[in-house]
């Protein structure tokens, strides 16, 4: 069978809840054993355990619950609360950035999303948000820049 057809069939099984290891909306957590550079993807948002605020970041004066720029459903990766969160954001953070907020957590926190499962993060950890690359958008931006 063609690879694409296998993938389409597999996706259908996942959506019907027939694959126990991959359930739509399945929650994931960083275990206490997780260490620096361990990463969980919530869709196209990467949540990575880290240990220092990257250069080019500043303490957010008005931190937002939403960790991805944008108004569409895909961007609705949101913290359950800002309590116990010290947030740093990239200077000049915009929709084209591949790096997003850096979170220092003094309380357990959860990142929620309407389609993806929750990701639970532990108090005492530092989490760096990054984004999956989008080749088509990168090429479109290049074309616009050349016009």
């Amino acid at each position, binding site marked *: 069978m063609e690879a694409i057809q296998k993938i389409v069939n597999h996706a259908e099984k996942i959506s019907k809840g027939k694959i126990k290891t991959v359930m739509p909306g399945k929650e994931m957590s960083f275990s206490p054993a997780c260490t620096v550079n361990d990463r969980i*993807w919530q869709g196209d948002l990467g949540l990575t355990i880290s240990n220092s605020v990257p250069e080019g970041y500043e303490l957010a004066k008005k931190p937002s619950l939403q960790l991805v720029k944008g108004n569409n459903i895909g961007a609705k990766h949101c913290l359950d609360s800002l309590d116990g969160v010290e947030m740093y954001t990239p200077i000049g953070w915009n929709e084209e950035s591949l790096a997003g907020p850096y979170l220092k957590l003094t309380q357990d926190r959860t990142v929620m999303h309407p389609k993806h499962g929750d990701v639970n993060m532990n108090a005492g950890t530092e989490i760096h948000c990054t984004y999956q690359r989008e080749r088509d958008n990168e090429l479109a931006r290049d074309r616009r820049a050349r016009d």
Partner: protein
Amino acid sequence: MIEKLTEEQEAQLEVYKDKWIKIGLECKPCDLEECKKYAKMAYEAAGLTFPDKVFHAKNPVEAAEIAKREGCESDNPVSDMMYGSHDAGWLSFYDYIYEVLGVKEVEPLLGLINLAKHCGWWAAYDECVIFQDRHIDLKLNEDGRLHNEDGPAVTYAGGFKVYAIDGVRLKEQIVMAPETLTVEDINAEQDMDIRSIMIERHGWHKFLKVINATCVDERENHTEGTLEALYETEDFGNRLVVTCPTGRVFTMGVPQEVVSCESAQYWLGNDEKQNFNVIGRT
């Protein structure tokens, strides 16, 4: 000669930017009396006589029809049109240097500057003037580009609509009936931005199947519990087709030199040096 802006003048740049963005995005109908007053100023500044005949159109198509009916169109009536409120981009600059910096040489433009606050596109002929209403609805994305995936991005009274996604103007079919697009339609499109939106809306995995793209790698991603395949295409580089843990199928572009599913995932994660340890994806 102005060589340096004062702090106050510099602060006004932001004010004038916001003011003119608001003018450019305004959706109210045109105010015909104000339009006549300021268009007359513009004619006079150009040394021309303001014509007796004045028309009011709901949208650019209606305006083009009036121009044709009145026998005053050129080869392309749209190219005769000035953009009124949509001239905000360049008029904002002159409004600022007139009002804030006091540069009097801008005065001949005051007709156009004020007209932009009262109408949409307009056409100035020797025989007549045609003023248009502004759009009645406008949908933009975060970057301020025209964008609506479920309907028109620009709607005028009288039924004229413009469809666009991420600032790329599209045929109605691409937005409203993407399931009717054929591979022939897609391949016939020369503009790469439009073509890529057409494929996105048609469904990448369907498109790859129909064009018989070559599968260069496939694997089960044990970390994520999903299946992946990497396809090579002539015009769109390599495409990674994956099942998402939400039960959907996604197709993502990666550069041509990425030739395995594993390296595609590293590229997508901006982790070509493989520094990070992916525990899973939800």
